[in-house]
């Protein structure tokens, strides 16, 4: 009965976790959700520390010590980290969580040994599993972190990763069985298992392309959830079990969602990973144009103050003038200032863009001439280049060899970010490469301009 009161209190924490996660999945409530989840965690920790436990020699000092060290370290890390390298950080944290399960498992195995409990019990099995999954999470996350951090390069490709992984996995299962088959505990074997698991974690993540790391992290995250749950089973501790499972489940779903967003399957990512990064975009390789996702572009648009649209022949070909105007309007509704920069020779006839935008009823005052536009870019958060190419080709400024050298262009690169909407990397009328597409600040949003624009519009509505 004692514990069931504790468990009842734990139930509250769990509810807080659930509500927290739920809120985390809506932009408006996300922040609040995070705090609620944190609250839940805080309560759970305090409960565990102070809820009387029979024949326990509390050792509060050690506990508090651990909490302090970890807490301070974690907080500083979290505050210091650059916005851009947060994913790595998450991965690292996640790994540490895994490490903790690993440690717990090791200790408990040790304890069982001391207590000389019967082998072949669910208890042992649980412990072994906790060890395995904890360790994999640990090493796997570390590798993922390293990859994102540029520590390891994708170029490090293991020979025949599939083989390696399969063999490791088999070995691990076999060994676990063997350990349980032993008359009594055998710590060396246990350690071997640990090492094998560690290797597996590395071998699992190493071959996957840097571009897919987010998915992998989310996957490892669900692992660490499961690890926590299993560790919970060891103590029959509700909050660990349920909390862990929930994270495990949501983590898995999240990974799948992420894959869908890149429209690939989870399997494809992992296998593709085994295959060595596969087609995963932006997998660190150089001089590859970065690809943007609709959703992220949408959110950036929505939260920027000033956006300039650069229409080109592609807008005309896609007949996307109305879609473009719609997006413009919904952004304006969000309080974003939207302008158009019209290059004199955009399109295939003088005034081509004028005709289109007039048709879509874009108010004339929104149209900027070349010179004005080039002045305004520097104060612009985002430039949408819609089916334009030659007219934004920097080589007209920089490369005296270029056939269009000397032509005045729209210097979009002055802006903070540039998103280019076109169907491929094909050149435009002048038939020449466009360095802009590979630029630091540039991201490509491939696909028919009209389609992309309407996607963006709806995403802006959701986000």
């Amino acid at each position, binding site marked *: 009965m004692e514990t069931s009161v504790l468990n009842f209190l734990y139930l509250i924490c769990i509810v807080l976790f*659930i509500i*927290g*996660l739920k809120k*985390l*999945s*809506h*932009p*408006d409530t*996300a*922040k609040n959700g995070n705090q609620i*989840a*944190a609250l839940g965690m805080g309560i*759970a920790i305090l409960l*565990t520390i102070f809820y009387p*436990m029979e024949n*326990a020699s509390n*050792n509060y000092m*050690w506990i508090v010590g651990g*909490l302090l*060290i*970890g*807490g301070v370290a*974690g*907080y500083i890390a*979290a505050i210091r*980290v650059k916005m851009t390298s947060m994913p790595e*950080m*998450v991965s690292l*944290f*996640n790994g540490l*969580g895994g490490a*903790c399960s690993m*440690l*717990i498992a090791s*200790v408990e195995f*040790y304890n069982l040994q001391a207590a000389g409990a019967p082998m072949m019990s669910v208890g042992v099995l649980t412990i072994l599993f906790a060890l395995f999954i904890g360790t994999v999470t640990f090493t796997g996350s570390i590798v993922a972190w390293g990859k994102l951090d540029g520590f390891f390069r994708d170029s490090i490709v293991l020979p025949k990763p599939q083989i390696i992984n399969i063999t490791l996995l088999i070995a691990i299962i076999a060994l676990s069985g063997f350990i349980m088959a032993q008359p009594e505990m055998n710590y060396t074997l246990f350690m071997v298992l640990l090492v094998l698991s560690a290797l597996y974690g590395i071998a699992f993540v190493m071959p996957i392309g840097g571009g897919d790391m987010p998915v992998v992290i989310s996957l490892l*995250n*669900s692992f*660490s959830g499961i*690890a*926590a749950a299993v560790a*919970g089973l060891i103590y029959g501790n509700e909050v*660990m*079990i349920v909390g862990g*499972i929930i*994270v495990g*489940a*949501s*983590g898995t*779903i*999240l990974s799948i*969602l*992420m894959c869908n967003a890149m429209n690939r399957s989870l399997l494809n990512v992992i296998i593709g990973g085994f295959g060595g990064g596969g087609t995963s975009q932006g997998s660190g390789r150089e001089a590859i144009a970065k690809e943007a*996702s*609709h*959703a992220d572009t949408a959110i950036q648009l929505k*939260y920027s*103050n000033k956006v300039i649209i650069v229409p080109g022949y592609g807008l005309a070909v896609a007949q996307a003038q109305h879609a473009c105007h719609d997006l413009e309007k919904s952004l304006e509704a969000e309080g974003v200032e939207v302008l158009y920069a019209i290059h004199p020779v955009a399109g295939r006839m003088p005034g081509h863009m004028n005709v289109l935008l007039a048709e879509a009823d874009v108010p004339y005052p929104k149209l900027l001439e070349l010179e004005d536009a080039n002045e305004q870019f520097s104060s612009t958060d985002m430039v949408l280049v819609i089916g334009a190419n030659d007219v934004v080709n920097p080589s007209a400024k920089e490369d005296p060899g270029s056939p269009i050298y000397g032509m005045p262009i729209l210097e979009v690169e002055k802006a903070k970010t540039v998103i280019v909407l076109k169907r491929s990397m094909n050149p435009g009328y002048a038939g020449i490469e466009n360095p802009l597409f590979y630029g630091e600040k540039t991201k490509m949003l491939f696909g028919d301009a009209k389609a992309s624009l309407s996607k963006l519009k709806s*995403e802006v509505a*959701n986000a």
Partner: protein
Amino acid sequence: MNTIIDFIINNIEMMYILTFAVFLGMEVISKVPTVLHTPLMSGANAVSGVVIIGAIILIKNANSDDYLILTVGMLGIALANVNVIGGFAVTNRMLEMFKKKKK
């Protein structure tokens, strides 16, 4: 094998709880907009730090003179707490950007 079956049978309520937890985990975040993937991941990751409870229990049960276990346990707590505190803090920062600018 049948040890496991027994286990299940004896902890039938636990099975219910687990099943539901799985469903909840999946339901609760379905329909999350792409832009929230990373923050959500990070938040969930922080929650997975719940393993810290285990480490605490571990220490509470340990004999006050068994320094090996105590240290290991403390290390465990420390690591897990990095996950917890750091996790929530980072998530919080990620979500800063969602504070809608006033116009």
